[in-house]
């Protein structure tokens, strides 16, 4: 039976349990003669309780079963295969198993496989179908049993509301744990694959190598060229593009924030701010298109007209457009920080006869500096992790340079180019993407933690 069908049946059972529970509570109450008032909780609470008992254990079983089904099937089927096949390397065995699954689903006609494989596919088919039938049966039985058990327990004294609320509180708690599980999932999955990568390529070669050319390592006999996974050129490229971006975004964003919060009239501010924030809502793929098709050729022509040679995928173009993207980000962060500076400081300075700009430069800015630095760090982390702009407008070849007119590549570009279209998980080329992801995750995490800490400390200072 399909998972969807099981799901729908389960839902129907839930609704049924609800009505049974609610009815039962009424019947019980009437039988005892006290009327509905003799019930501890409202009738629907008994209904909810029954529905929850029907749903939760069954869902739990369904998830558990679906989660382990494929692994167990794999173990069972592989155990039946001839020893010679079982001794194949894991990747080949995986391929063999996939083929066998294909046969079982009727994707290919059985003529292509060897007899052992065809026999195993038949074995797989039988196992898979009995597993799915058993799963459906078990899940539904558990649901019915859970619902019935709950309905049978209904008495006027049963504290159904408290019961339901307790369960519900646990569900709420579970939802808030999803965020933690996500972080855990990110760390574990990336770390796991990255460790597999570092088993092939030594950590120091990755961290301090000056050469990045993963394309060399497609064939097994070429892995020996371990110098090709040096990550430094990528780091330098990433920092170069991010620096260009920050050089655009910080002055423009900061000055806009100062002007809008200190000088502009309320009406001007009310119109301007949302308009500039449109820049933050534009999808990054749009910026990428803009960078690759409009800005890059423009910068190239501009450079050529003054006699400079500019690469067609220059760091300048990607950085400039990325800078435009983070202007509103810098602006709204600085705006918050500047507004948090107490007016008493401004008034004191103005009262001493300082002009507005002197007050801003000599009083407000020094007071806001830690917060603004925090904001810039957040912007930097955003720039480092940005993907689409650089995928579309930056280069692919890793070059160790700090000239913004040349083409460089970044960490995110390499992750995309290593993983798109490639499915094999055992070669260092694919695993390298996870090592890069690990670096990216920790660099941005570090920047964020530091930035949030700085900003919070700053806020506390004036609260």
């Amino acid at each position, binding site marked *: 039976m399909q998972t969807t069908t099981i799901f729908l049946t389960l839902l129907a059972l839930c609704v049924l349990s609800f009505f049974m529970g609610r009815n039962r509570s009424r019947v019980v109450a009437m039988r005892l003669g006290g009327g509905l008032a003799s019930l501890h909780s409202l009738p629907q609470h008994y209904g909810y309780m029954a529905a929850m008992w029907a749903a939760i254990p069954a869902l739990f079983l369904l998830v558990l079963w679906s989660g382990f089904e*494929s692994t167990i099937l794999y173990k069972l089927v592989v155990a039946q295969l001839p020893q010679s096949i079982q001794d194949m390397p894991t990747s080949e065995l995986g391929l063999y198993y996939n083929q066998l699954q294909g046969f079982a689903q009727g994707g290919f006609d059985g003529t292509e496989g060897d007899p052992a494989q065809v026999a195993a596919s038949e074995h797989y088919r039988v196992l898979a179908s009995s597993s799915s039938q058993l799963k459906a049966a078990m899940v539904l039985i558990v649901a019915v049993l859970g619902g019935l058990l709950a309905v049978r327990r209904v008495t006027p004294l049963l504290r159904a*509301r408290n019961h339901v*609320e307790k369960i519900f*509180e646990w569900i*709420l*708690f579970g*939802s*808030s744990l999803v*965020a*933690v599980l*996500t*972080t855990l*999932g*990110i760390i574990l*999955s*990336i770390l*796991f694959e990255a460790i597999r990568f570092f088993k092939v390529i030594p950590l120091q070669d990755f961290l301090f190598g000056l050469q990045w050319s993963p394309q060399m390592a497609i064939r097994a006999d070429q892995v020996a060229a371990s110098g090709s996974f040096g990550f430094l050129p990528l780091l330098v490229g990433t920092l170069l593009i991010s620096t260009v971006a920050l050089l655009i975004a910080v*002055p*423009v964003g*900061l*000055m*806009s924030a100062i*002007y*809008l919060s200190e000088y*502009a009239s309320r009406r001007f501010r009310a119109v*301007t701010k949302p308009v*500039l924030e449109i*820049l933050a809502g*534009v*999808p*990054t*793929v*749009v*910026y*990428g*298109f*803009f960078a*690759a*098709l409009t800005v890059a050729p423009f910068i190239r022509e501009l450079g050529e007209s003054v006699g400079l040679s500019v690469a067609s995928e220059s760091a300048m173009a990607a950085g400039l457009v990325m800078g*435009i993207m983070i*202007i509103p980000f810098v602006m709204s962060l600085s705006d918050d920080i500047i507004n948090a500076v107490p007016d008493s400081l401004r008034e004191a300075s103005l009262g001493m006869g300082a*002009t*507005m*700009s*002197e007050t801003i*430069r000599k009083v407000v800015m020094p007071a806001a500096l830690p917060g603004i630095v925090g904001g810039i760090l*957040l912007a930097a982390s955003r720039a480092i*992790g940005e*993907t689409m702009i650089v*995928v*579309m407008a930056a280069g692919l070849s890793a070059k160790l340079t700090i000239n913004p007119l040349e083409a460089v590549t970044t960490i995110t570009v390499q992750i*995309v180019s290593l*993983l*798109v279209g490639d499915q094999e998980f055992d070669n260092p080329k694919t695993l390298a*993407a996870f090592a890069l*992801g690990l670096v*990216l*995750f920790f660099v*941005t995490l570090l920047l964020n*933690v530091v930035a949030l800490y700085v900003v919070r400390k700053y806020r506390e200072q004036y609260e």
Partner: protein
Amino acid sequence: MSKQSHYKTTTAIQASLKKRYATERRFQWYGRLAVLTGFIFLFILLADIVSKGTPAFTQHFIKVDVIFDREKLGIDSSATPTEIAHADYSAAIKSSLRTMFPDVSTRGEKKSLYRLISVGAQYSLRDMAIDNPALIGTTREIWLPAHSEAGSYLKNQVSKDLPESERKIKDIQIKWLDTLGEEGRTESRFNRTFFTSGDSREPEMAGIKAALYGSFYTLLVTFLLAFPIGVMAAVYLEEFAPRNRLTDLIEININNLAAVPSIVFGLLGLAVFINFFELPRSAPLVGGIVLALITLPTIIITSRAAIGAVSPSIYQAAMGVGASKLQTVVHHVLPVAMPGILTGSIIGMAQALGETAPLLMIGMVAFIMDVPGGVTDPSTVLPVQIFLWADSPERGFTEKTSAAIMVLMGFLVLMNALAVFLRKRFELK
């Protein structure tokens, strides 16, 4: 202080004041300049996209006297519907074109002639013939879509002054198109194909329908996961969570998760959902799950703010008449906070709609011609379609890309307008 020195100080101050005021004015101008720079960037970006994309909403058609010649079609008078469906309409178009331009003789010229009409035209003829088999054997004037290069010329995007070698369209094709134009046989129409077909190798046949459906299914999954989980997490953290280490951990976690680069979520999706749980690649299901994880922090943070803003009198009133905490929250607090929660969720959904990088990781970059029928079918989404088209070297795809961007931005504007509308109504209360 003597009068003399007082005078001196005053003049010194006045002299410096001039300078200070000049600095003040300069500083203000820097501020104005910064705001203006932002505006200019925004204007250039939008103008660039609109000017590139607008032509894609029109499509040129050429009126051809199509001869439904049985011999060319390769069918006889007793053809069954299946045979009609599989007839060679391309040959019919070619022979009709040759009849219209009888002086075309060399192979190269013929080839150029055929390239005036879209490769997809044969399918519209086929559909017409299936609907009305009586057409076969007759000659009809039919408007057929122009090939993208011919269309590009008809839209005045190609300069005749360029040397022939530097443009895709040949001199002889220009001559034919001009003749056709003088005879009133070319026409510009609204490009329906763009909204009613999937991806194609031919720019004039490519459309965004498949990508729109893919985006719809993906966002549906995202919403169904992120909205309930986000709201429940917000309710827990705002109303039920005890002040302890675990709660602190959860809160810090949510804030940090909001700043993790989206591509890292893509890696998570690839390693966990595709490799470990073996969910289908390229499917809206996995895309939706990954996007749900990305938007979850946004929804939680905004929902918490909305719940926190509910007036305490509501709690007191509900608690006072004996409601339990959960009843208070579900029956009274959530309805009041709902506009704020929806605003946050819509903004989260808009963010998810524009997200590209994580979807590349989980393989939603496939070439999709057919509209996906469900959340497990291979599909692509609008931003990824834009990415794919932006990579195509053909000129015809550049304008498609810009047009798709305009559609995407249109949806984003709609969603944000809805969010602003909800917020405005919320503020009135």
